[in-house]
């Protein structure tokens, strides 16, 4: 079985982002970018499935600017076999990304597509579900365990009340949650090897997909600021403040 993984280049999760003063977006020049953390988990899962003999080839895909090649090289260094960059400089909305991925799925015919559950920049949590819809496939979202079987995959999902197990007929779409695995760090030899692995660049046009955004961003603003309050010396003062000042207990 071939596995396709989608990896997004995002502002690193440690960066405290700043909103542009003209409210057109967030400042992205001179900030560190890295692979969306959930996508690292997705790639790690694919690599483990391959190591366990359940998968034969891992193809990683990113839709984004030329710099997304670095993200793809990271995935190759983790153990993916081949990469495809679908190059575009504009914003990539989940529906457009899902359409691009659908076009690639039709070419590559994977048995499973693994994505992150959420990109930590747009916080949409949509793309995997959309791809599954467009393909008419089953979806196993927010996965914390994936067990590939014969023509099926059992996915343990993190839901509001706890955990749920669903069985999906393959091919299927899975989206990775935080506790699916702990992604490995690529070793130096693997980083060197990754430089020689195939990385193909295509355009959305060549795939016949229109990636023009559907939504218009009218503005991006700072959230209301929360001021730090006071330090209390001990528990007695804390309880007094909560009872008599804040009146919450």
């Amino acid at each position, binding site marked *: 079985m071939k596995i396709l993984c989608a990896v997004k280049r995002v502002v690193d*999760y440690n960066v405290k982002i700043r*909103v542009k003063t003209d409210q057109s977006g*967030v400042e992205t020049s001179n900030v560190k970018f890295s692979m969306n953390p*959930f996508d690292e988990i997705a790639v790690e899962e694919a690599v483990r499935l391959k190591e366990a003999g359940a998968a034969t080839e891992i193809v990683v895909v990113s839709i984004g600017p030329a710099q997304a090649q670095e993200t793809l090289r990271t995935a190759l260094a983790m153990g993916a076999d081949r990469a495809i960059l679908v190059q575009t400089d504009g914003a990539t909305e*989940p*529906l457009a990304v899902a359409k691009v991925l659908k076009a690639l799925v039709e070419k590559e015919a994977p048995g499973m597509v693994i994505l992150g*559950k959420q990109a*930590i*920049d747009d*916080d*949409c*949590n*949509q793309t995997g*579900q*959309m791809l599954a*819809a467009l393909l008419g*496939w089953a*979806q196993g*979202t*927010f996965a*914390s365990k994936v067990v590939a079987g014969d023509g099926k995959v059992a996915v343990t999902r*993190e*839901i*509001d*009340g*706890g*955990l*749920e*197990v*669903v*069985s*999906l007929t393959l091919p*299927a779409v899975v989206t990775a*949650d*935080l*506790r699916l695995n702990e992604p490995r760090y690529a070793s130096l030899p693997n980083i060197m090897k990754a430089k020689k692995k195939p990385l193909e660049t295509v355009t959305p046009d060549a795939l016949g997909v229109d990636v023009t955004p*559907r*939504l*218009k*961003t*009218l*503005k*991006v*603003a*700072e*959230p209301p600021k*929360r001021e*730090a*309050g*006071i*330090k*209390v010396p001990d*528990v*007695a003062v*804390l*309880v007094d403040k*909560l009872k008599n000042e*804040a009146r*919450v*207990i």
Partner: protein
Amino acid sequence: MPILILADHDNASLKPATAHTVTAATKLGTDIHVLVAGRGATPAAEEAAKLAGVAKVLLADDASYEHALAEPVAALLVSLAPGYSHILAAATSVGKNVLPRVAALLDVAMISEITAVVSADSFERPIYAGNAIATVQSADPVKIVTIRTTAFEAAAAGNCAAVESVTTPAAPGPSSFVSAELTKSERPELTAARIVISGGRGMQSGENFPLLEALADKLGAAVGASRAAVDAGFVPNDYQVGQTGKIVAPELYIAVGISGAIQHLAGMKDSKVIVAINKDEEAPIFQVADYGLVADLFKALPELQQAV
């Protein structure tokens, strides 16, 4: 045009998230329909009919909807979509799973976790873990939107809308439910509680959580956790508060042994009053806390439990 809400429920009862979604819908129009898709879900439908502002409840009762699997529920919503201006759901694990599937099947964009309705086609939503608020506008014929429940009050009960059965399309069956392991608790639900007490890595182990639970029980509070505490196995996954866990905004949030990473703050910084207990006076959590106590939690928690 009417607005359709996908209800969140467990067949036997309606989840409070739905009442919050109804309030968001009242900001878009007055003809509000609530879809209850389930099996033996009449009790949930009757609860939905009581919510103020609801004009009609649609009940789709079929075995394929028992566990709210995305494939059949999305197919049902698509069959009902013509004639609706908006399809809404709470940003719960059901809403997040189903609505993007509906949007793609209808070939429209989706707007996730809105915190405000600006107009019928424009919405505010947090991005970058809540460090920026985007206002987005949709030109699509139907708007598919999930609601952050903490941003909208719950609609009151006291209505008596009609419950109508709807016919269900053939259910696509590429997935099936196997089992569920739900966390049982006598405490209030995290997202609906008036007081939330969360523990972090500083708790050191799951065995120490009873310290926190004893205080929670005295205050009638729900118990939450940071990702680090969940990853370490101290508490189940559904305790996680944050960017990728639950979003809470109680009257009082007490963070115990939590450093205050942006991903955690994203889930609780809209709480009315924030208390932080941490032994490191430099911990970033103090930057958002109304009352900070620099102390060893193993000393402070028992004292606090005595004092309240």
